């Protein structure tokens, strides 16, 4: 089994576990943790792709909410100040990448002529 196969196998296993989590969460977990979801069924298929992708976070939040460990002030700790980092690092990264990409560009070596370095050996049949 080569590396590519292993990676794809991991992706498939990830998806299968996600499907199991989705089934459990959407049939009974969601009613337990969110009163707004009770008796609301049409929106649930929309939630499935998200669970397939980030099921470990879903399990974590499900556990926190179902066991009453949710700490309400955490909901109001805004992340707005993180934008300072985005505003600094993203422009630097973009400029570095553009400059790098541009600097490694090659032009067709039309000026390089083929050169015979040595004469052929005896012809063969």
């Amino acid at each position: 089994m080569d590396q590519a196969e292993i990676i794809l196998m991991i992706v498939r296993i990830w998806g299968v576990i996600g499907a199991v989590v989705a089934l459990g969460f959407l049939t009974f977990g969601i009613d337990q943790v969110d009163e707004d979801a009770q008796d609301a069924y049409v929106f649930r298929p929309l939630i499935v792709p998200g669970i397939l992708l980030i099921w470990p976070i879903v399990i974590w939040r499900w556990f926190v909410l179902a066991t009453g460990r949710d700490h309400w002030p955490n909901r109001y700790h805004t992340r707005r100040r993180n934008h300072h980092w985005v505003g600094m690092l993203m422009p630097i990264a973009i400029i570095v990448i553009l400059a790098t990409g541009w600097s490694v560009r090659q032009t067709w070596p039309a000026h390089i002529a083929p050169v015979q370095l040595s004469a052929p050996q005896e012809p063969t049949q």
Partner: protein
Amino acid sequence: MSDKNTPFFVGYLPSPGPLRWFLMTTIGLFIATFVSAGLFIGATQDAPMPSGFRFDYGPQTVTGVIELTPYPILRVTQGNELIQEGKTLMLAGQGKNGIDQRVMEADGQLRSITGIVLQRGTIDMLQVDGRARGVVDVEGTAPPMETVPLGRWSLAGEICDGKCLYGAMRPGTGLAHRACAALCLIGDVPPVFVSSQPIEGSDFMLITGPDGTVLPRAAYDFIGQFVSLEGDLERRGDVMILRIDPQTMELTAG
């Protein structure tokens, strides 16, 4: 702190009057950006090289001597109207595959080959029919074929897969196409080197590893880039074969 003079937008309420003109202008700019970007990006794409499949010619059947370089070529001994006797054709399979398996035992023997022509100026490649009629045994003794050694050369150019260079894909060269070319070469489609300037009237040559081996893995790191390299050149009919020396490969400057 916001001030009372700035119009305040609430999503589920009608937009405040002073904001409407601003939003209409933004909408106009937005649509104009998308229309002009679609037009300018779409209409300024580089023209692909003039090359491609010639399905319009229909399947061609020719007979000749198979030679394994190790990539199979056909030295045509009995041609047709389109492909004359004396012509040399590189042979590729369907998709990103060579036809090594089908001609493994046929080195130096006569075969009748049916396939679709790939043309880039001249006709130098055939995509062999996947069915049994693609490769058919032919009775008779294969005539001797001449190989003309041309000595050791230093060249510059690009390593591609033969099929895409011949227009199976347009564009079929460059770095955006690199992974596709690598897949073709992994599948044993004949690799080709496009030279910066022609040698004896030809700007491309079939390439192999040294001493009749397949293209070495080291060469895969250079696919789609512009490289200079050295190798032993030989002519078989009207196709040249370059047996590259992997130690000499390096990117050209600039």
